[in-house]
């Protein structure tokens, strides 16, 4: 019988480090990937993932199962990633998640792909992936987190809303705006992919 995440964490609280190892095995991969998509640097992503696990471990004695384990885990990860990104940009703004929801967030500048880079169906796979990551990373902070948790972690609305500390309806708007931006930015890839699909269907 497999123990739930909450049960594993309660066992860690009771002093069982082996249970912590099970949580590590289960979540290091999604966590490293989430953080990599946030910061776009593998070494930084791994450092941050270690920091997330360390914080979870240090907080074990105070752990109470009031929320899903993943909500807690990804909340810590989101905060650390956003701080890291902000530090990287040498900004000295308020670092809470809410600071990201300022009215001008939609006006964030969207960089265009380098002119020598051809954005079409002939792009080699690695370049396509890099380009997609880049476009995602240029979304406003809150939209970016929403997309990553929605698309790649496949979380439900209630959980993402809790991680972002917003209402579900606000989350729906965030996702709507984020995917609209991505649809426009990735239009060459989307259209190529769509026409390829039509071609294979007929």
């Amino acid at each position, binding site marked *: 019988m497999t123990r739930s995440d909450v049960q594993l964490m309660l066992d860690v609280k009771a002093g069982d480090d082996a249970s912590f190892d099970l949580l590590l095995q289960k979540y*290091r991969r999604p966590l*490293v*990937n989430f953080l990599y*998509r946030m910061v776009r640097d*593998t070494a930084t992503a*791994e450092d941050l*993932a270690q920091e997330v696990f360390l914080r979870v471990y240090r907080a074990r004695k105070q752990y109470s199962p009031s929320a899903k384990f993943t909500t807690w885990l990804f909340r810590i990860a989101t905060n650390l990633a956003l701080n890291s990104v902000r530090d990287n940009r040498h900004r000295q703004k308020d670092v809470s998640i809410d600071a990201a929801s300022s009215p001008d967030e939609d006006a964030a500048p969207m960089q265009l792909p380098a002119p020598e880079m051809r954005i079409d169906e002939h792009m080699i796979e690695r370049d396509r992936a890099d380009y*997609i990551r880049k476009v995602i990373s240029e979304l406003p902070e809150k939209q970016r987190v929403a997309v990553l948790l929605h698309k790649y972690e496949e979380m439900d609305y209630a959980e993402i809303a809790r991680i972002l500390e917003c209402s579900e309806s606000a989350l*729906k708007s965030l996702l709507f705006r984020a995917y609209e931006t991505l649809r426009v930015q990735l239009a060459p890839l989307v259209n190529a992919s*769509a026409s390829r699909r039509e071609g294979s269907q007929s």
Partner: protein
Amino acid sequence: MKCEDVSKELIPYLDRRSNSADRHEVEEHLAICVACRTRAEELRTLWSVLDEVPIVEPSLGFDARMRARIAEEPQPRWFRWFVPQPRLAMAMALLLAVSVWITRLPQDNSGLPGSVQNEQQQFQVIKNLDVLENYDVLSKFDALDEVPADEQPAPQPDQQNDQQQQQE
């Protein structure tokens, strides 16, 4: 439903992760509106494009590094709960020594007349118990507080020998 309302419900409709009651309304609208149907198709394609981003694997040393950092974390000291103070530890050690000494007495002095032996015995026990209750004696152990437990001198054996010599 208008196109504007549908577009906001389109993502929850397509990902099937929302249990809102709007599913039927969205479906009805999509059946009659080409623009929204196209948008829905584009969203699906966008998601398949986003899936092209490969999964990265944590480096091989990730777990080892993590375990090393966990091992460095201070562990809760359960033994402190049993022995909170050196003074109490010393008192407990003395009490143990006294009880060992009491159990050994009858064997060592089996040749002596019963009544005399009993009086002596009781006197010694009372004398030793006084030591435990004497605050001045115990407070002198404060000087030992900073000495690690395994380096503390153990006065019990000498005490025992003295007492046995006294009786012989």
